[in-house]
């Protein structure tokens, strides 16, 4: 199955061998009384060359999923209690600390939301980019220096060779995020995980950074991106496929066209309708999903969305719906949807 989606990135998605397979991932955090599940049974595939978006509100488990792939969940209090994450036939969850360190930054890299706290304030940025290269490759310091300068030039840091000696605080927010991208991509990783990469930035800077990220990614052959964000519009513009998370589970997953043109899950439909730019404004009022996001220690039994869903039926309170697979590959976790098969 080959499909082209985004106008800017006409990469055919080869639905053969996924580069990353996440199956039944469960992550728990220890609270005062017992464990709370932040992620409860997440499964998805990431294909080479693909940009997968994971959207959800705060507490939906999207960032915890990303951190689990990098094995960066602080343990304790956190614990990956079940599931498997396979990267190139290796089980990530079983790797030792040194093996994992080889993968981080080299094969799987991550960009964090807050570029100020993600960069080390007491080292120059040159030192930080160089260190990343020297950790993973056996080259001389001088060569590493040259590569670092070239990478910073690529991400649009003006006068890069002079600015190598500067510290993170001497850069603006947008530039720091550019440096983060340089750090993440300097070893040409197969997978880039971007956790809210533009949330801390202004709209015009956001547009620049997204463009840069996509442009740099297309230069690395067959590399994939997992873009985690709460901003539906950012996902609509950049991704091939989208997973919508709520209450620690994927509620709906499909291509960008399936999710944005024909959303099936009541939560996805509610989210899209509640955007101020949406067309579903009635009498000047925005659609609002009633209630609040339940906290992870206080999730309802049955469907996680049942307390806020307007189409709820009795069954939703008792039984968690399976992920129904529709005939076009679109998957929805809702009792009201008739699927071809269940996952």
């Amino acid at each position, binding site marked *: 199955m080959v499909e082209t989606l985004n106008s800017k990135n006409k990469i055919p998605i080869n639905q053969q061998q996924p580069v990353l397979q996440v199956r039944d991932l469960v992550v728990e955090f220890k609270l005062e009384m017992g464990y709370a599940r932040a992620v409860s049974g997440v499964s998805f595939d990431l294909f080479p060359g693909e940009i997968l978006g994971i959207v959800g509100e705060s507490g939906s488990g999207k960032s915890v999923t990303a951190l689990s792939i990098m094995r960066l969940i602080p343990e304790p209090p956190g614990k990956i209690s079940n599931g498997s994450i396979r990267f190139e036939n290796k089980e990530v969850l079983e790797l030792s600390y040194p093996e994992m360190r080889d993968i981080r930054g080299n094969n799987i890299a991550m960009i964090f939301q807050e570029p100020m706290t993600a960069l080390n304030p007491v080292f120059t940025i040159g030192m930080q980019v160089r260190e990343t290269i020297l950790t993973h490759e056996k080259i001389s310091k001088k060569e590493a220096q040259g590569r670092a300068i070239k990478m910073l030039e690529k991400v649009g840091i003006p006068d890069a060779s002079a600015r190598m000696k500067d510290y993170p605080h001497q850069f603006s927010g947008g530039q720091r995020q550019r440096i983060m991208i340089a750090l993440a991509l300097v070893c040409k990783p197969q997978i880039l995980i971007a956790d809210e990469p533009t949330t801390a930035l202004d*709209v015009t800077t956001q547009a620049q950074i997204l463009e840069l990220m996509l442009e740099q990614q297309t230069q690395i052959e067959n590399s994939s991106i997992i873009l985690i964000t709460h901003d539906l519009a950012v996902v609509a513009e950049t991704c091939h496929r989208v997973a919508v998370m709520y209450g620690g589970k994927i509620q709906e997953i499909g291509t960008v066209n399936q999710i944005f043109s024909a959303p099936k899950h009541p939560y996805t439909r509610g989210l899209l309708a509640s955007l101020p*730019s949406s067309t579903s404004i009635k009498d000047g009022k925005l659609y609002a999903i009633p209630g609040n996001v339940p906290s992870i220690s206080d999730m309802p039994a049955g469907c996680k969305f049942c307390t806020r869903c307007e189409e709820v039926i009795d069954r939703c309170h008792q039984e968690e719906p399976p992920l129904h697979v529709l005939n076009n590959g679109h998957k929805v976790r809702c009792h009201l949807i008739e699927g071809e098969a269940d996952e």
Partner: protein
Amino acid sequence: MSEILLEVKNLSVRFPIWGGILRQKIAEVRAVENVSFTIKKGETLGLVGESGCGKTTTAKAICHILKETSHGVVQEGEIIFHSENGPVNLLSLNRKEMRFYRREIQMIFQDPFSSLNPRMTVSEIIQRPLKIHTKMNKKERRTRVTDLLEKVGLQPEYALRYPHEFSGGQRQRIGIARALAVRPKLIIADEPVSALDVSVQSQVINLLEDLQDEFGLTYLFVAHDLSVINHVSDRISVMYLGRIVETGSAEQVYSSPLHPYSQALISAIPQTDPAKRSDRIMLKGEIPSSMNKPSGCSFNPRCPIAVAECSTKIPELREMNDHHSAACDLLELK
């Protein structure tokens, strides 16, 4: 034509930077320069711009809270508030005189986590402005609190709880109840929904609109999110580096922006609907610091249509057509 409630005339705000051994003034941040706008009774004016453009400083100047927080701040111009006792220039008032007008102008803050005192119960938080500004007795105040909680969609039983027991959206509702407690005329909302999740954001926007209808409130709505601003506002002013670059009705500014900056800003908004996606105007570079502004039009180094004159002359806000003004000399008068 309804009455004018607030007139801001040529407002400029400058913050000094202290440094050196003698802690002398070594530089100045010109946060707001020559900003003028009016707000009519019952309308919502949206003030939009990116970080550092001076929108929050403008809001704070109106609320008179800059002098309290920053030493040596210079505020010039006039902020004329049309109260029942006639117009008064808020900038000329001292702290004590201002107290009287604080009743009429209340503020809603961005961060619902830091804007509520964690050691006070919800009831104490909402009663505080009543204690300061009114002569209500305990019983009257309690009734008012119950009333307000219902109005903002919270259960009255919550009055005895502490802020940490609430979610972000609920806390923002408490902040709104506190602002409404003294029945103000003007509410200054500084990024009231930007810290909230999408599904909760629309609840709070709807609440603010309902309350406006019910109490005849006037809003100055400050935000960076243009689609939110477009939804709530009657008129929009776009700010860039301390100056207003464009003002007009929400429809005019959002659908047919005139200033090249507004055009770029609007085109940068990501769209969920692939059909609505248009060609994006990518701006070069980043916003310069307000300590070191470019000469002439402050947008000229990033402007896609800039000419040589742009770096020498500061463009004035001119009315281009039907109350739609822009500060760009390259636009033809219609």
